[in-house]
């Protein structure tokens, strides 16, 4: 994945060199040059869109770079990117800054990202609240009997701290507290799936796309926003509707209402084909 990104970046760099002379968004010969920058979570998705779009529109040239949602928004405010990709909403401070620079950020939801909390299929526990999951990960709960399960120690699995999901989970589920020292940091999602399929009393979190693929190896927990709220099983429908609590929108931000080549790219992203790519890359379409 990382190598792929590096390759992509290198490719984009070479291409931008080639097209350095045709900087304008719309060139005389009809070629299009677009830059997309921001969230590392979305880089893979955005490059998949860009690749397909470029295949269909000869002369279109789109460069996608990561760096994080904050970097992307900063680039939009500085006018160095056409589209900012962000896995969080723009902050009030950033909107004010944009205003002072005469930039008007327009938000557009392009996909949703759901995180499934998974356990071994033999684990009798089916439903947990956000608070309970958080307490497992900060180390307040260490035994399944505290959660209505058998008297077995909980094996806590997490992604590596370099993963964006690690931080999102910490923020959304663990009220920004630190992970327990006993949490095992797994180098990849597949390693989490592998361990959970073998360790009866382990718990982990993985992207929804991976969870669907590993359906026969792991069990997705139903999640309750709070004690009174209904238990929600993660699915494309519940993530789309916002009922499933551990999910986030993946945004595009543009300066002002999109027009020209930006608009035609966004139309493609929201089209049936564009949203099919969303599903293929493991995220949830918006409509």
């Amino acid at each position, binding site marked *: 994945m*990382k190598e792929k990104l590096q390759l992509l970046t290198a490719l984009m760099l070479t291409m931008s060199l080639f097209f350095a002379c045709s900087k304008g968004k719309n060139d005389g010969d009809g070629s299009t040059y677009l830059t997309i920058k921001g969230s*590392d979570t979305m880089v893979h998705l955005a490059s998949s869109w860009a690749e397909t779009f470029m295949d269909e529109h000869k002369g279109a040239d789109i460069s996608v770079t990561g760096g994080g949602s904050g970097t992307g928004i900063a680039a939009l405010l500085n006018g160095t990117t056409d589209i900012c990709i962000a896995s969080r909403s723009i902050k009030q401070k950033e909107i004010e800054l944009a205003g002072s620079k005469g930039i008007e950020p327009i938000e557009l939801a392009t996909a949703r990202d759901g995180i499934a909390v998974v356990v071994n299929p033999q684990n009798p526990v089916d439903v947990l609240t956000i608070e309970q999951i958080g307490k497992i990960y900060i180390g307040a709960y260490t035994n399944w009997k505290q959660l209505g399960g058998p008297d*077995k*120690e909980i*094996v806590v699995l997490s992604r*590596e*701290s*370099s*993963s964006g999901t*690690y*931080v999102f989970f*910490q*923020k959304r589920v663990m009220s*920004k*507290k*630190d*992970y327990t*020292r*006993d*949490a*095992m*940091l*797994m*180098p990849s999602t597949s*390693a989490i799936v*592998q*361990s959970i399929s*073998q*360790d009866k*009393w*382990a718990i982990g979190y993985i992207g929804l796309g991976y969870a669907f693929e590993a359906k026969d190896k792991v069990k997705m927990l139903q999640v309750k926003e709070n004690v009174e709220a209904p238990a929600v099983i993660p699915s494309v429908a519940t993530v789309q509707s916002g009922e499933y609590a551990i999910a986030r929108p993946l945004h595009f931000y543009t300066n002002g209402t999109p027009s020209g080549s930006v608009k035609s790219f966004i139309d493609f992203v929201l089209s049936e084909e564009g949203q099919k790519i969303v599903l293929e890359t493991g995220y949830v379409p918006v409509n």
Partner: protein
Amino acid sequence: MLVGGASTSILVVFLIFLFLGKEAIPFIEEPGLGSLFETRWIPVTFKQQAFGVLPLFTGSLVVTVLATILLLPFGVFGAIYIAEIGSSVERSFLKPFIEVLAGIPSVVIGFFGLVVLSPALKYVFNLNTGLTAITGAILLALMAIPTVISISEDAIRSVPAAYKEASLALGAGKLQTIFRIIVPAALPGIIAAIMLGMGRVIGETMAVLMVTGNAAKITFNPFDSVRTMTATIAAEMGEVAFGSQHYQALFWVGLILLVITFGLNIVAQKVLRKYQIR
């Protein structure tokens, strides 16, 4: 040109030290070297970052010590058997397989550990999870055994034949000759072999990253999950913000690792040289 070729590696080692140091130095001012001695490693947090290398150091230590203990009997007895006891047919069969073992990429060994060894250990010792220090240690011992066998075997073979003949002529049995005469004479070489094997064990990254669970806590329990120094660098370097404190802390981890392996190698060379003079 020949001198240049030979001294390139010296230059490279020197440059590696230099550049590691250069990236790590700003850490001394802020947050200060003392923070490396904290007991917690929490690089990504909404609260206070902590860069205590201790849990990573004990992680590497536990894995290395365990692997060395496992390495000893297999490496040394294996070498004795190949050098002294086995027939030449056995030797021509065993040697290539040991060399093949040395050539298996560590990620493949790690995959084997994840899919085969870790579930097996979990079942045998009735553990909560198979991702433990001992799982990593077994894999590392596997990887270092070829090094230890080859160098120990060389050492055993270079014991002068006269020693052996004299011992046998005095009426000592074959095993007596091996354990009372040959092994003591070859001991410095065997020790050097083990130390070089340990160097390989400490520096190995991919397999331990895959099977030790990577929980950064201070523990000496072989059946607990540990996070080694190498695994930490491999897992975190890719996404760390360039020039941040976390980035500098990772370079400190690298420096510490380099000093340890450097020291081990120097001692091993010293021991080897002493043995060659005899």
